[in-house]
């Protein structure tokens, strides 16, 4: 069997506001507009991905929160409605998706063999979390590729950001090995925002962009530092900063998603393509692509 590979990695944040503002038929609420910077960034990402042949989207979502181990979706098809528990006024999305169960099982096995605590999710009544759905929708709204969804084991909260870092690095390595063993071509999605302090009030018209800005300048400075490292290809330095970044900005890197993806990509040293940066209800969000296979083929360092 041909060796599988990660063809691209994407920092693909999941604010439901972006789906709301797009007005896809799957979502019940209707918007006038909003958060264009980020939405247009996702458009550029989608355009790039159109030129890449791949089999499966693999997403690690901060909103499937498991305090015991890392879980993997293990049912072939899910069809239901996802209502965001935080922003139900914006996101009531009817989804119908398929799961690459064999790849999920391979990933679970590799993670378990690496010493991580794991579990396959086999309950057909399970509701897929909105982080998974938002990131996948914005990356591939046609839903024509199966997905693998991985939960966020909440080590940051349970132990510390450093423990989360260690387990995410291990999970990323196991993910890469599993993908290579599967023979599949995969796009990875790290479904997290950067700085993650929200406003606790909402405009009467949620898409009123006169109200949208970063929660705090310190958050913005940290976000820019992180993005600068991505653009410079300094992902090992970035990963070392993740615990501090997480603590200083209550960043959603607490989920382990970004660290997991960079570990799976084996810490790219080529520049990432930043498609967009913008805020959503005060949080910092960036759409960033690592066109991994293209750089490997062209002889660039991974």
């Amino acid at each position: 069997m041909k060796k599988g590979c990660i063809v691209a990695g994407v920092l693909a944040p999941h604010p439901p506001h972006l789906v709301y503002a797009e007005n896809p038929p799957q979502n019940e609420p209707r918007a006038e507009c909003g958060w264009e910077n980020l939405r247009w960034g996702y458009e550029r990402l989608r355009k790039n991905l159109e030129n890449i042949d791949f089999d499966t989207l693999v997403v690690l979502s901060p909103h499937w929160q498991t305090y015991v181990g890392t879980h993997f979706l293990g049912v072939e098809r899910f069809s239901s409605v996802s209502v965001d528990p935080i922003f139900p006024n914006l996101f009531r999305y009817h989804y119908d998706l398929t799961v690459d169960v064999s790849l999920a099982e391979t990933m679970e096995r590799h993670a378990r063999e690496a010493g991580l605590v794991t579990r396959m999710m086999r309950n057909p009544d399970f509701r897929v979390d909105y982080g998974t759905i938002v990131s996948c929708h914005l990356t591939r709204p046609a839903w024509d590729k199966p997905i693998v969804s991985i939960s966020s084991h909440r080590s940051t909260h349970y132990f510390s950001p450093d423990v989360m870092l260690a387990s995410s690095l291990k999970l990323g390595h196991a993910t890469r090995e599993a993908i290579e063993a599967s023979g599949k071509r995969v796009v990875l999605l790290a479904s997290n925002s950067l700085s993650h302090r929200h406003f606790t009030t909402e405009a009467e018209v949620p898409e009123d962009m006169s109200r949208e800005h970063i929660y705090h300048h310190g958050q913005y400075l940290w976000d820019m530092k992180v993005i600068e490292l991505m653009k410079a290809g300094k992902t090992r330095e970035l990963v070392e900063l993740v615990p501090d970044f997480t603590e200083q900005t209550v960043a959603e890197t607490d989920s382990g998603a970004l660290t997991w993806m960079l570990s799976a990509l084996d810490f790219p040293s080529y520049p990432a393509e930043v498609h967009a940066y913008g805020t959503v209800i005060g949080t910092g969000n960036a759409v960033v692509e690592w066109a991994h296979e293209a750089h490997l083929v062209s002889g660039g360092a991974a």
Partner: protein
Amino acid sequence: MKNRHPVIGGYVLPGLPHPLLVPEANPGWSRLRQGFEQVRAEIAESDADLLLIYSTMWPSVVGHQIQADPEPEWVHVDELFHDLGSIPYKFRMDADFAADYCRQCRDRGLQARTVAYKGFPIDTGSVVALKLINPDNRIPATIVSSNVYADRAETVVLAKSAVAALERSGKKAIAIVISTLSNRLHQEWIKPEEDQVHSLKDQEWNAKILDFLKAGRLEDTAQLSRQIHREARVHKVVNFKPFWWLASVMGEHNLYTGTVFGYEAVFGTGSAVIGLRRATRAARDLEFDEESPERYIGDRNVLGPSSDSMSGWSSQVQVASQPPGEA
């Protein structure tokens, strides 16, 4: 004398699904299930019009959210313990009360909104509690979220808003918080028979909390919230808030009779079923911070008076004109 307080009793209930879905798998989980059933019997005998729930397992970001779907219906699966099975439910919510609760919150400066959407994900803890203590939906309920950023001041005002809404409605309510005591879970999969509280430290803190509540010391427990958060809680949110809410909604004092219907480990957490009924006077001669929680009437000499002489203070006297023992 004030009119009767609209909150006629309170409960602390744990939210993990094991006592509902697999009580037979562990004797402790079965005893907790029995504790829930005792609570169900007490509630059935009460004249409550409403179950007023604050769930630590329903986080919110934009202020507080209040469930207002009159008949939410779904098949719920816990995101962590999905292997234990599915929980079909259909509940009865008091939508009118939820709307007024929300108005009272806003009138007091809080950000709040009602939610009434088909398929809204009611949290595991609320689902477990309502299935076990109100299985026939005899009493309508309302559920309010726990804002992850809220601290004491916001939580206390949230509770006072609920009391204001109750007073306007003329309804009598039973207040319920959904929360474990210590909330550390085991970090590896265990067999049900291997379950125990995660650590000795957690066990000791749980014992302290139970001692306080058994003595009716709800306000004192509330005052310990920050310490409990530091010592016995995984820091998912800014603070441990359920006792602030419960003490504020029931009356900020220690005039209760506490009953621990069950205390067991559920996958490492300290899970307790606790009831609080109003008492005519405080169970113990304690150093209360004030003579009256309602009105400042000067500093008090905590070393001076005996418990007999304190009996006339409003902090030592039941606020409602009801006979002893009445819930």
